[in-house]
């Protein structure tokens, strides 16, 4: 029998969505709600401000003043960019939510599908699912923005939230300004991407290790880890301060590709190790406890 059968993968997806439909609907509503709330709130605030005015003006006058403010959509885009990682982390914490209860573990682990198929579905569902839901929520927020702007303030040319978000994501200013060669810049970008993926992967690993309260445990881990890292970094800096600078200059002799490898290979190795460990923990899950021994 094949280790990965696409039909069986689809069956796993169908089964999971069927038995966890309410859970997924709740997650979608929460994400969409978080995206929509500031858009709706802004309109409600504008109406509330008008009603609370001590020196009332006609609504048509107020509309023309308020409408100018609704063309500014940048604040939304920054909010979306902050919200997305939070939503992704939250969903990654629920990657193996099926395993939180004993019955869930029995259902999941006795399902006639391979570990690869079940694991792949959980990853695809949480990662791609979150991205798709987030995009759909922004589109919905855009629609709400257009409808409310037109209905309440007669705005016929509203600025698109989706376009503004895309613009922000593709802006060059977001990239770290690095005064080096293009190769060094690429290397640093690779390193930051790997670092970001590793950060997200800690939550995935956490969900395979501890089925309940994953977010709290991983957050605690990060607090402890970064405190220890800062202390070690400080100690390292003290040591380097006492080293002959000529010896350190030898590092510059390493060719650019070597520096690239020195920076990115360990980061990639850590990322791969985390995914391997997550998969292994998932495969070795048992019916007994909420903690995966």
């Amino acid at each position, binding site marked *: 029998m094949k280790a990965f059968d696409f039909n*069986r993968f689809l069956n796993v997806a169908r089964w999971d969505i*069927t038995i966890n*439909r309410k859970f997924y609907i709740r997650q979608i509503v929460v994400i969409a709600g978080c995206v929509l709330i500031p858009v709706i709130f802004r309109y409600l605030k504008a109406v509330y401000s008008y009603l609370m005015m001590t020196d009332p003006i006609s609504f048509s006058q107020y509309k023309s003043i308020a409408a100018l403010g609704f063309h500014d959509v940048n604040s939304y885009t920054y909010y979306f960019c902050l919200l997305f990682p939070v939503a992704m982390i939250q969903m990654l914490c629920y990657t193996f939510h099926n395993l939180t209860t004993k019955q869930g573990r029995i259902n999941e682990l*006795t399902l006639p599908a391979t570990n690869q198929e079940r694991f792949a579905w959980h990853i695809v569902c949480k990662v791609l699912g979150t991205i798709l839901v987030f995009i759909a929520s922004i589109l919905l927020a855009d629609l709400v923005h257009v409808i409310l702007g037109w209905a309440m303030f007669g705005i016929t040319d509203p600025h698109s939230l989706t376009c503004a978000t895309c613009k922000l994501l593709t802006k060059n200013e977001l990239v770290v300004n690095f005064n080096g060669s293009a190769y060094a810049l690429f290397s640093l970008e690779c390193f930051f991407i790997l670092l970001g993926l590793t950060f997200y992967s800690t939550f995935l690993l956490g969900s395979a290790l501890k089925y309940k309260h994953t977010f709290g445990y991983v957050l605690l881990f990060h607090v402890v880890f970064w405190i220890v890292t800062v202390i070690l970094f400080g100690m390292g800096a003290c040591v380097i301060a006492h080293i002959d600078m000529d010896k350190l200059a030898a590092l510059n002799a390493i060719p650019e590709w070597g520096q690239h490898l020195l920076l990115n290979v360990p980061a990639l190795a850590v990322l791969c190790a985390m995914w391997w460990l997550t998969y292994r923990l998932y495969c070795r899950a048992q*019916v007994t406890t909420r903690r995966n021994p």
Partner: protein
Amino acid sequence: MSYFCSVLFNYYTMIDVKNITFGYNKYCNVLQDFSLQFKKGGVYGLLGKNGTGKSTLLYLIMGLLRPKQGEVRVDGILTSQRLPEVMQDMFIVPEEYDLPRISLAEYVKSLKPFYPKFSDELLARCLEGFDMTPNVNLGSLSMGQKKKVYMCIALATNTDYLLMDEPTNGLDILSKSQFRKVVIQSMSEEKTIIISTHQVHDVEHMLDHVCIINQNSVLLDTPLVEDNGPIDLEKLFIETLTNKTVEE
């Protein structure tokens, strides 16, 4: 001759529990160097005192637990690997469980593709046997009703191995009688049902074979023959345990 016997034995031994040791912590083992074989076909009763590891044994057979030592094979394949070709021929009805808040039809539709021998006809027959209709929402059922529905689904999967942990717990008197009828009706030569229970009277007339176990050995592993009238399983259970205590 001995080789021939061993080949023949392995052929008919479909579930082979071999020298397993298992404990929920490292200080105390529930099962210690335990071995047991279940042959193809029939209803097995798995009996034992509280805490002797009956449920644990079922979970080990299903591959839901990893033994510290030893192995469990079903049709020659290790169950701890949880391969689809093995899992599609096995189903477990645990003692306690919860069903999702969806309709039975939706639940069955999502589960059916995984079990190639799934029979809608058998499901309908089992539900009818329990006086239940197929148009039910699983979330609105009582614990007993959920148990009946889940057992119907388990039987309808038509898997060769069906493991039931305390299946009659939480069922009323009528339902217990219906349970016996439903199980007997759905039996076939290929099917092996292992029932772990304390309620010996609920299942004694449907068992073909009984295994009485304790932590590290099988105290009794015998077919039940009713040539000399009905067998009192409770008496047999007490006698077996008493004899064991005297021996010790």
